[in-house]
């Protein structure tokens, strides 16, 4: 699309957002205020519903997906404009969804026509809430070590085993799963990619409490669960390709962590928590340095996001996407430690009224940052990937 028509598109988007985004939806959503969709979902409030429905009707819950599946049909440049314009007025995402972020792109690549029609549309419309079934107890980083078994029973698979880190499996409608369909094959071979309705008999979940005090994750158990064969994505035993494609999207998502989620920013809260000297500098030079180093790092990460986008626009093949998960979560780690350093004893509150909501959030954010460098491929796995795929060091 030419620069001119992009400019035209930008003003249209800006106008539409000004007309359609309720004012209450123009502040960062607190965790409880996000709309995740699904059969059991309720809207946190009427404005959230209005905003969701308007965006859904434009196809802008999934701006880049084809219009035939309910998406917005935008190209990457247009999608970025929409994102930038939403960011400019701090508009909330109308729908938060693993289906949009992760499953959808994989289905677009590997799903058959029937699957695309059935699942993509439901995702865009917020009708299905999805969770992810990759890791297993004992096989955290070793995704190819899948033990969860799916036996071929003619018209269906019989699934037995368990998955861990299934985020909010307790409220999800569907789970996308890596299962082992062939035990003779080695590692990556013999794995299949299955879509499973969480209401199927034999599925149960239990919540895992994290050090941040949150319980976003579950362990999910499959006990003789029957899954129709039509729920297989791609070929049987060849699910690893689907899985890898999806992992790319997860990495991308993780690398953008913190850019959309409302969070306590050490740069903006500093003034309330540290003292300054006569020159206007933070008096504790170590805290000041820590803040500056975080600030400089996050700037570099932001610029690299932008460079990656520009390179794709210009069809330049760059390596930056492969580092984004590492540096994005590293930035969150630095942010968490900077918050604790800046806020001192104020950021050590776990509960109770003696600490403000911001203070308690800062602490939880710090604790959650410890999860980010592990989930979605640990720091170590990311470094392995860089060493192998980019640097091509001997294995």
């Amino acid at each position: 699309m030419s620069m001119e028509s992009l400019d035209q598109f930008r003003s249209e988007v800006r106008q539409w957002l000004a007309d359609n985004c309720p004012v209450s939806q123009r502040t960062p959503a607190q965790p409880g205020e996000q709309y995740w969709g699904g059969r059991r979902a309720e809207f946190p409030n009427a404005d959230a519903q209005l905003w969701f429905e308007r965006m859904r009707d434009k196809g802008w819950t999934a701006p880049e997906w084809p219009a035939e599946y309910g998406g917005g049909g935008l190209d990457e440049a247009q999608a970025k404009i929409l994102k930038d314009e939403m960011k400019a007025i701090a508009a909330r995402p109308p729908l938060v969804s693993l289906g949009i972020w992760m499953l959808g792109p994989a289905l677009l690549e590997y799903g058959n026509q029937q699957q695309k029609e059935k699942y993509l549309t439901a995702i865009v419309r917020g009708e299905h809430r999805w969770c992810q079934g990759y890791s297993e107890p004992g096989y955290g980083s070793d995704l190819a070590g899948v033990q969860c078994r799916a036996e071929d029973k003619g018209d269906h698979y019989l699934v037995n085993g368990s998955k861990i880190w299934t985020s909010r499996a307790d409220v999800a409608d569907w789970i996308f799963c890596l299962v082992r369909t062939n035990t003779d094959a080695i590692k990556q071979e013999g794995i299949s990619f299955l879509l499973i309705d969480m209401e199927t008999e034999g599925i149960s979940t239990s919540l895992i409490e994290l050090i941040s005090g949150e319980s976003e994750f579950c362990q999910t158990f499959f006990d003789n669960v029957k899954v129709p064969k039509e729920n297989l994505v791609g070929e049987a035993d060849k699910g690893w390709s689907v899985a890898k494609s999806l992992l790319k999207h997860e990495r991308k998502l993780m690398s953008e962590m913190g850019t959309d989620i409302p969070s306590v920013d050490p740069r903006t809260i500093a003034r309330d928590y540290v003292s300054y000297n006569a020159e206007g500098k933070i008096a504790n030079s170590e805290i000041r340095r820590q803040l500056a180093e975080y600030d400089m790092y996050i700037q570099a990460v932001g610029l690299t996001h932008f460079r990656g986008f520009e390179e794709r626009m210009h069809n330049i093949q760059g390596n930056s996407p492969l580092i984004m998960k590492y540096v994005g979560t590293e930035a969150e780690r630095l942010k968490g430690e900077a918050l604790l350093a800046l806020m001192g004893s104020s950021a050590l509150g776990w509960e109770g009224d003696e600490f403000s909501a911001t203070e308690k959030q800062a602490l939880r954010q710090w604790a959650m940052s410890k999860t980010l460098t592990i989930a979605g491929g640990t720091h170590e796995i990311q470094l392995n990937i860089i060493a192998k795929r980019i640097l091509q060091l001997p294995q």
Partner: protein
Amino acid sequence: MSLVLNEEQTLLQSTARDFLLTNSPVDEFRKLRDSRDALGYSAELWQQIADLGWAGIIIPEQYGGLEFGFQGLAAIIEETGHTLLASPLISSSVLSASALVLGGNEKQKNDFLPQLANGSITLALALEDGNHHDPLGVTTSANPSDGGWLVNGRKVFVMDGHSADQLILVARTSGAAGESQGLSLFLVDAASAGITRTRTTMVDGRNAANIELENVAVGADQLLGTVDDGWTILEPVLDRGRIALAAELLGSAWEAFNRTVEYLKEREQFGVKIGSFQALQHRASIMYTELELSNSVVMHAASAVDDDPAGLPAIASLAKARMNDVSKLVTNEAVQMHGGIGVTDELDIGLFLKRSRVAMQLLGDSGYHKDRYATLNGY
């Protein structure tokens, strides 16, 4: 200076280790945390500890203490780091006991030290006015009134302050924030009129109180040391507290490290023990070098309390700054190396991470102590 424990100290340490592993393993602390226990530590256990003499370990014999020296106390506190013991050992037996020993008059010592040593009362040091350690920045005021003083202000982050029987208040009788001259210490009954204590629940599952002081009347006999000259007592008291915290951090860093090394030997991924991955080996080895260096620094600091009072400030800052940094490194790495299980509440490793961050802030973060160390060394 001795950098090895003598026979008596070694015996004390191994006794402490056995006692704590038996009576207060990490599970006990977890129960305490989960039950939101009002006291924040086990009263029964504390009495046992006092019966062992630890509460009075640095208190002279004439006041009912063991008079065993600070190095022994530090050895015990290091062991408490291994099991995450929640107790008033640092607030009462290190900070408050030291303040009384160094600054109390005969009557004050007789009134409080024996009870402190036998565990029948606890004391807490109410120091911080704000969210960053800044003893010279205290502006809580003590204005003359009726031959005594009226104290006004707000104290935060007072270790075990909600349950202490007596509080040692740091207040300003003259001078301005930033000056050492003009600080005074007062020993007040925690139930005195004008004192409102609120317990806070912190990330480490322990407690520190916020304390409102509104026209708290103190008499001349409640002054600890000399008026305006509290700093001469407070500074060595704080240095002892810092060394005690450094010892605790050392113990908990070793424990988190040892548990991680064990995990590296057990956990398999990609068909091999993850401890065979060289990247993890090197990170573990680097941590090991830091912990070995820390052993020397903390032991030296503990011995300096009794042997080298003149060198104490720099030595204490060296120890606290180092243990802040090493503890941060080791607890972060411990969680990361445990992977997914490391960030669940179910595993104990997260408890070490959380305690680390609180102990790092207590009595001075790394920036505070590096700055102080540099200043004391003339740059």
